[in-house]
């Protein structure tokens, strides 16, 4: 084994892979990957919810531009969205924006657009009888959404959400293109520095990505079971 692979390079740089130069410098490596994923994940959950609800509003002056925006974002490669954020955000804000924040914005925008479609399908999948029953008792439309449709819809959306978030975790690797020192970026750095161990390094980070995604999938399965109520026929 040692003749073929030498994992010394991993153990030597282990802390750097995990957290970058933290706590003496900025957070990097796996830690930054998780940070990017979790923050973008939370933001795009709410972003997707808002976009999804707005895309269903009956007033075309609201739903039309929202749908246009969603389709525009879905029609772009993520890398393009990240570049756009990288160059556009500082210009718009009139000041420099940390790269990690531009990446979070790009990931959030992109994932929200996809999430909105999951939300829309989840809402439209609730039988109309539920809404009819609720409005018949005098509930207003927003109350029906809040108390009846969303609680049932969100549970049905969990598997699709998870898919989207697993993609999101892997998509954080694109942050390396704008110089954010997340896991993939750190790996290329170490690789460039040591030159001799690309296989070992990229096997190692592949395993890390796998376990991160696997942990997330397991978490969601647990969540799904916890939220399981027996469905009415």
């Amino acid at each position: 084994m040692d003749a073929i692979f030498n994992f010394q390079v991993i153990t030597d740089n282990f802390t750097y892979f995990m957290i970058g130069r933290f706590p003496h410098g900025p957070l990097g490596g796996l830690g930054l990957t998780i940070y990017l994923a979790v923050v973008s994940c939370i933001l795009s959950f709410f972003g997707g919810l808002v976009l999804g609800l707005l895309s269903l509003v009956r007033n075309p002056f609201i739903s039309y531009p929202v749908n246009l925006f969603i389709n525009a974002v879905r029609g772009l490669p993520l890398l393009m969205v990240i570049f756009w954020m990288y160059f556009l955000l500082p210009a718009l804000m009139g000041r420099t924006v940390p790269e990690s924040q531009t990446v979070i914005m790009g990931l959030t925008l992109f994932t929200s657009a996809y999430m909105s479609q999951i939300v829309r399908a989840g809402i439209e999948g609730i039988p109309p009888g539920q809404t009819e029953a609720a409005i018949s008792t005098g509930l207003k439309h927003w109350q029906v959404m809040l108390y009846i449709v969303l609680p049932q819809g969100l549970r049905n959306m969990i598997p699709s959400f998870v898919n989207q978030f697993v993609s999101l975790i892997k998509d954080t690797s694109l942050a390396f293109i704008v110089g954010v020192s997340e896991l993939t970026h750190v790996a290329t750095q170490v690789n460039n520095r040591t030159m001799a161990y690309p296989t070992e390094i990229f096997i190692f980070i592949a395993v890390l990505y796998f376990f991160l995604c696997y942990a997330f999938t397991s978490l969601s399965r647990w969540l799904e079971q916890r939220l399981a109520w027996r469905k009415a026929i």
Partner: protein
Amino acid sequence: MIQFAGVHKWFNQLHVLNDINLRITPGEVLVVCGPSGSGKSTLIRTINQLEPIDKGKLVVDGMDLLDKKTDINKLRAEIGFVFQQFNLYPHLSVLGNITLAPLKIRKMPKKEAEEQAMTLLARVGLAEKRDAYPSQLSGGQQQRVAIARALAMKPKIMLFDEPTSALDPEMIGEVLAVMQGLAGTGITMVVVTHEMGFAREVAHRVAFMDHGVVLEEAKPEEFFRNPQHERAQQFLKQLLSPMH
């Protein structure tokens, strides 16, 4: 209490309600019957505007449904609706199903809403099911919970849209018994049903519909003994002896 005057409704080309003129007085129990596709479900659904009407005048509890100033949510809170498919909320317990509207609309304190729910559950014979979820109940039990849910808003009007049509035969009786207990309590009831036994015993008046038209209105004893319209005669004959 409910007044239809020259009401029309179309689904595209289909004329589902054709010049409906009906007057339902407070406390009255009206049974609407007729063959499937006759427009009886649409008729009952116009009363709380689950289906808006296209033409005519419909006044419910003093409120004109075509008047833009009418607060439809407020009116719906006064009208209970019971569906063929029950439509209980699967993510809420029996108690949650019944207390939701009183809590959110009437702003009733939680304790009071739950006490009221328990009273209603006792009335429909399901007090021990307070913490069950809808899918743990039989169809008949679900429909009785649905009736309790509608009653929790203390409605002046109760609408039943084929409440027993989705039930196994042995469960029909328990639901009809609850409805029978409700009739004569002063609540106005409109019931779309094929249960002619119920119509005969409980209804004050029977309306027979076909092709979007109310062909006949009569007291049940007259309607069943001597239906005037030919279509009504055929309908009753088929319903009472479906094998012939």
